[in-house]
């Protein structure tokens, strides 16, 4: 039907009593998401839109079946909250929070990699399987159900491309925002794999951006393993260079990271790379025929 989330997914909201957590809980409920519990330490016994709040994930887990958690917590404690979710064996953890220190992200990723959990984010808009479940902050009205999977490193572009697809009567199976930070809990390949084995996904739209080598790595996977078409756009071809910061970054990336590198790797792996988002519907339609 979809990847990661569907209408049966039981969701926990960590940081549910904050201003943003509360507002987004409402939007998620409106989108049909099955939110079963919330956590804010010190707030046990209260309710948010009828959802019971607990002091700890452990207690929420003891009182409810939980498949996924979405976090609206301050950046300074994001590390501990993600680890709390993972230690309590929540399978899918989505960290919306922006500006988490990258050393904290590396630590949480290390915990996650040793667990059975999957971490989406940080700085992700979340995940939506339109009409079934929304985990995160994606504006619901951009999305329609269908059979195109969308993976985007940029949050706002995941909205834009989905809206453009929807506007052209191309629905989405699942849309996943990978998160925009230096380090992401989950890489493009991990999500490509899920789409590759999802029966309902017929084609994947991949929105990359300059920096890192995720797209180059994904190209390799697509070439060797992917059994459905992939359409890609890489943002940042005309973006300004960052100030030069020592040699270390350049040496690590070893020539990867530029828009040119990503586009050429993807193209030679059989991916149709477009120059502008608005070209996507036409390409998708052609490929789905």
């Amino acid at each position: 039907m979809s990847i990661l989330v569907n209408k049966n997914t039981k969701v926990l909201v960590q940081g549910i009593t904050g201003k943003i957590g509360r507002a987004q809980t409402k939007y998620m409920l409106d989108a049909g998401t099955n939110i079963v519990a919330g956590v804010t330490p010190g707030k046990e016994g209260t309710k948010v839109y009828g959802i019971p709040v607990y002091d700890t994930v452990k207690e929420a887990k003891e009182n409810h079946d939980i498949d996924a958690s979405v976090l609206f917590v301050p950046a300074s404690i994001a590390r501990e909250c993600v680890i709390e979710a993972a230690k309590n064996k929540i399978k899918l953890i989505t960290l919306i929070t922006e500006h988490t220190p990258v050393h904290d992200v590396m630590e949480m990723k290390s915990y996650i990699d040793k667990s059975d959990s999957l971490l989406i984010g940080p700085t992700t808009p979340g995940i939506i399987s339109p009409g079934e479940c929304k985990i995160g902050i994606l504006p619901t009205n951009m999305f329609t159900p269908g059979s195109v999977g969308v993976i985007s490193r940029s949050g706002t572009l995941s909205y834009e491309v989905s809206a453009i697809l929807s506007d052209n009567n191309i629905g989405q199976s699942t849309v996943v925002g990978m998160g925009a930070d230096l380090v992401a809990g989950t890489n493009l390949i991990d999500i490509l794999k899920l789409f590759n084995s999802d029966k309902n996904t017929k084609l994947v739209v991949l929105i990359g951006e300059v920096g890192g080598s995720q797209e180059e790595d994904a190209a390799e996977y697509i070439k060797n393993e992917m059994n459905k078409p992939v359409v890609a756009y890489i943002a940042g071809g005309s973006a300004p260079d960052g100030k030069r910061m020592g040699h270390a970054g350049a040496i690590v990336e070893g020539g990867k990271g530029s828009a040119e590198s990503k586009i050429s790797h993807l193209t030679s792996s059989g991916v149709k790379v477009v120059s502008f988002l608005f070209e996507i519907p036409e390409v998708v339609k052609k490929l789905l025929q």
Partner: protein
Amino acid sequence: MRLYEYEAKKIFYSNEIKIPKSKMVYSSKDAKKAVQEIGFPVVVKSQTLIGGRGKAGGIKIVDEIKDLEKTVEEILQLEIKGYKANGVLIEEKLNIKQELYCGITIDRTLGKAVIMISSEGGIDIETVANKDPDKIMKFMIDPTEEKFSYEFIEFVKKLDFSGKLLLKISNVVKKLFEIFNNYDCKIAEINPIVITDQNDVICADAVLEIDDSALFRHPNFKKRKLNSMNEREKHFNKKGATYVRLDGNIGLICSGAGLGMATMDLINNYENMSPANFLETGGGITEDLVFDCMELIIEIPDIKGILLNLYGGINPIHEGAKGVARAIKKHNLKIPIVAKALGNRQEETWKILEKSGVVVVKNFETRKAVETLAKILEGESV
């Protein structure tokens, strides 16, 4: 936040990494005093955050007192890629037997710190990396596992050092890694680590870049960063917004980096339009923030038009719209402003913007908004 060389070296020194005798000065007069302590020959080093200063003439060796004043003044006046130096570092000249490289940064895909060392350090390290990548040893670090002294020794042994040099170099790498972790660095780099003719191991240059998101854990550096900002930059910084000045004529306010880059790609497609700035608000939109964004953009000379491209996911775009309206009213703005603003509370947002004279594009495609602005600038009706 990148630190100046002299700031990074202070941190090295307090963490027991050897650095050359040195003194930071801001005038040739103080440079003379510094030399009395250090002794000739000295190296005069421009303190700037821009790379490639050596090749740009920002590092000079001075052997005699007669050349000192002129060299210091020249380097203080020297612009490197448009930036002047924030003072010069007067430093003892080392007797170099060998130069090594050590850099620590983050492998984005693995999400792990990577320590790189090479026995061929110096300004050509990137050439070494490209031509002969095997000459750079790389070690990936699991952030949840402690790294022990013996592991650094095992690591540095691969460069074929032995005896006391092995211990000294391993210790520098270990300390640099501790600094990388303790100061929340994105980059910690020493190029070169100098082995002197006396077999001393001394760090001749220093690059530290601290993660801005972690400055709450480093109040001194946070203060120093805030001190170097004006009020508006402070506000931006607090909200997590990013602003970069560019050369073009179209002001741009976007609610995400990817959206911003994609919008720039589209603007650049028109001959008579190019971005005057890159501005992304992140998820912290408020009325005041967007008001500040507007003020920042209208200060740019020759600005021809403004494009807003906002999504209401986590952002209250109706609040942002109020900021736009306030700026228009306050400055009695007449230049064309086109907005695409979609998502939660979009109707409310549109109403506020249209009331202020903003052209609202209600399509999903950013292309349509860019097209609309282009048409207005061409004098066409929209």
